[in-house]
């Protein structure tokens, strides 16, 4: 069930990506299939990874968790020094013709790392200190990634908080965490002028020059109506929505496939989350449960934040839509994560 959902998502993702990116590919690289080809390569690689990982024993995999965590920190550190800059952000490491985004690797690494740490602490105290300790563990990577990729840092932090939440019995302290989090965000926003500016844009994007991307996304969504303009017939992707193949791809889906298409896609994600929940709750051990829960948290956070940004429900921040948005590294590691979830699922079936 999970595999089928992932397959359907990935394939529809590739088709949507082609529709959304054909224009930009043609204009920039004289090749309508430019983005599709690169994405397809990553997807094939990802499926191989997924298959390999799904055959593995996740307990053995978890033994490398600390190593993976350290590696991801090293890579995130390296990208700050020798990374390539694209669209104004230094996020890529180049190895020959391939480029690699370490922040994407950081997410599965953190899931693996935290799951292992938490699952080993069988008698988790209910004190607030163990919780803080848990969050503190990921702070180094959050700080490293956050220097040039705030959105991914937020996702990592979110995964950590949810894993901590799952690992501990209480609720009240999480309400406190939530409130402090909001306080921190407010403080963080007010520190820099450009962050406050985002808030102003969010409230009224049409009155603001920099609200262009948001507005174009809203135009695309609004043009969709119930049934959309028809697949491939969207106009907003023709240079109106900047980088239509990236963060804003959901607006193109809305334009072309309408509310029906958008709901269908979100339903696919719902099924995916449901599957993760089932795997997590049926896992034979805490490690498996936390792994599946972490993956669920990852997908849920990214989908919710992405759709929220595209619909201008929250201020603009660059978060991709899993399986759909263009991005080779992201696609590769997402599929690898699916492999982990499949491995957990396979383990529980075998034991049963």
């Amino acid at each position, binding site marked *: 069930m999970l595999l089928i959902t992932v397959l359907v998502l990935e394939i529809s993702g590739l088709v949507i990506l082609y529709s959304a990116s054909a224009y930009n590919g043609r204009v920039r690289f004289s090749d309508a299939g430019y983005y599709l080809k690169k994405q397809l390569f990553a997807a094939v690689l990802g499926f191989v990874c997924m298959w390999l990982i799904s055959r593995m024993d996740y307990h053995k995999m978890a033994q490398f968790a600390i190593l993976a965590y350290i590696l991801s920190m090293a890579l995130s550190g390296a990208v700050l020094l020798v990374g390539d800059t694209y669209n104004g952000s230094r996020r890529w490491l180049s190895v020959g013709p391939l480029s690699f985004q370490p922040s994407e690797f950081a997410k599965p690494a953190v899931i693996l790392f935290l799951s292992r740490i938490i699952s080993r602490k069988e008698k988790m105290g209910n004190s607030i200190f163990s919780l803080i300790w848990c969050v503190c563990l990921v702070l180094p990577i959050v700080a490293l990634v956050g220097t040039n990729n705030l959105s991914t840092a937020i996702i990592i932090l979110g995964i950590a908080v949810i894993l901590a939440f799952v690992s501990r019995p209480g609720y009240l302290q999480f309400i406190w965490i939530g409130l402090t989090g909001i306080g921190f965000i407010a403080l963080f926003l007010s520190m820099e002028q450009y962050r406050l500016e985002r808030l102003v844009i969010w409230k009224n994007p049409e009155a603001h020059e920099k609200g262009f991307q948001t507005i174009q996304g809203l135009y695309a969504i609004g*043009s969709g109506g119930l049934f959309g303009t028809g697949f491939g017939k969207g106009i907003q992707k023709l240079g109106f929505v900047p980088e239509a193949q990236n963060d804003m791809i959901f607006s193109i889906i809305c334009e072309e496939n*309408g509310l029906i298409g958008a709901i269908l896609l979100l339903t696919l994600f719902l099924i995916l989350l449901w599957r993760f929940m089932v795997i997590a709750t049926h896992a034979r051990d805490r490690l498996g449960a936390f792994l599946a829960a972490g993956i669920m948290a990852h997908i849920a956070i990214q989908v919710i934040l992405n*759709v929220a940004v595209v619909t201008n429900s929250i201020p603009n921040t660059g978060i991709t839509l899993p399986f759909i948005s263009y991005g080779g590294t992201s696609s590769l590691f997402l599929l690898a994560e699916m492999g982990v979830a499949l491995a957990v699922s396979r383990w529980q079936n075998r034991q049963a």
Partner: protein
Amino acid sequence: MHTFHKRKIIVVFLGSILLLLALIGRLGWLMLGRSEYYGKKAQDLHERERSIKAERGEIWDRNGTVLAANRTVCTVSVIHSQITDPERVIRVLTEELDMEEEKVRARVEKRSSIERIRTNVPKETGDRIRQQELAGVKVDEDYRRYYPFGNLASTAIGFTGGDNQGIVGLEVQYDDVLQGTPGKILTMTDARGVELPDAGESRQEAEAGDTLQISLDVNIQTYATQAALQVMEKKQADGVSVLLMQPDNGEILAMVNVPEYDLNDPFTLETDTVQMSEQEIQDARNQMWRNDCINDTYEPGSTFKIITASAGLEEGVVSLQDKFFCPGYKIVDDRRIRCHKVSGHGSENFVQAAQNSCNPVFIEVGLRLGVERYYHYFQQFGLLEKTGIDLPGEAGTIMHHPENMGQVELATVAFGQSFQITPIQLAATVASLINGGKRITPHLGVSIWDAEGVLKEQLEYPEGEQILSEETSSTMRYVLEQVVDGGSGKNAYIEGYRIGGKTATSETLPRSANQYISSFIGFAPADDPQVLGLCVIHNPQGVYYGGTIAAPVIRDIFQNILPYLGIEKEEIRKKDGASIQ
């Protein structure tokens, strides 16, 4: 595994579901509730309106001869992304358009959405290029204004700009009539403005403009232009204006301001422009485009004695038999105003004074009227207002305020000095004084026809007021005929025709420059005026008397156009009359 882990996993899942459902709600609101708003905005963004030029209406003369028409020209452009065989495109365009290969190559190879290669390409060339069916080459048809007679009546007709809009003359005056309604093509474009080939376009056809028929007669205009050019050359004058109109209804038969300019090439100056600044070039062009008949005022001089005589006769302060004595000057207040004949005209009656164009006599008539009555007639004759001619930029009269008019000012006005009017004002006023006394509105526009050639509207002009009694009007015709028969206007006399008229020679300001304007206003037949002509010669060299140089111009023109207009010679008319009896 603790059960609280499971419980909490389910809590996270349910929380996610809740948030996703909320987002779906938001999506529904955006895509259904706000769909119209955002959809409309997006459409505005995607749609490009390309307008289709409307064909401009033609201008016809009174006989239907085309004075202004349109020629189909083509604009050749290339769309870079659609070109498949650039070398062939470059070769064909270089050959057909007779351009340098590098120029064509640079434009063909330029990475732009659409690049214009050449405009104003003849239709035949455009058709030939189109027949080659070159991918990426666009041939758009367009209209270009064309004036078959070149510079004929240029200052009256005027010309248009690149956007089919009138710039000067009738073209701007009747822009609304001629322009038509442009159509439009709505197309969808991408963000760079490139049209989307498969998105349907909606078209709204252009509506051609209406045709304007004017009272001008190409033959009369041509002849008047030749006569004006002749005298301009002969007298080395700065310029010559000739106006011919029907005194009964104000229809203008000819309006000449030489030197005229080429309507098909209105921006090129005759003079060398190398040394000129941008501003100077523009000033020179504006000067070239000026219609001296209506845009400029001048001191009319002795032709204005017609107005003084009409007022005096109408008011009864003078009669034809009144005796006068001209000693060669007249003292007004402390001034001694000279007659043009220094030795004086001696004893003369009013008709003889008119024939002699005797200043002291007309000063006397003016003084007899007094400032108040003179000003009253000045106003009643319509001289304070514009004539209302259907051409842009008519200049107004420059006249003393009545409270500032003393005896000296009155005296000078009485023989046409110290104030200024336009030639069209003089012609319109004199026409009104001799046509039976009805004020006419001089005009060119007569009727409007639609593009299919169906009469749409007969243009109407205000019914003129009676500004002079018919009796005085008739007396004026007699007096002015005497001026031509045996007075200063005798050079306008044509054997067999009864012609009335008045000469004038005025010195321009500043007087020290010794520059003159010579003019003659005449009409025929004197007893039943059907055509009135005014000739104004600016700054002639040598002999500058209006009677000597301007009167022959009108005579020359009348001699030719009177038979053309079907006005027969007096003997023939008499004979015909006799045979009927």
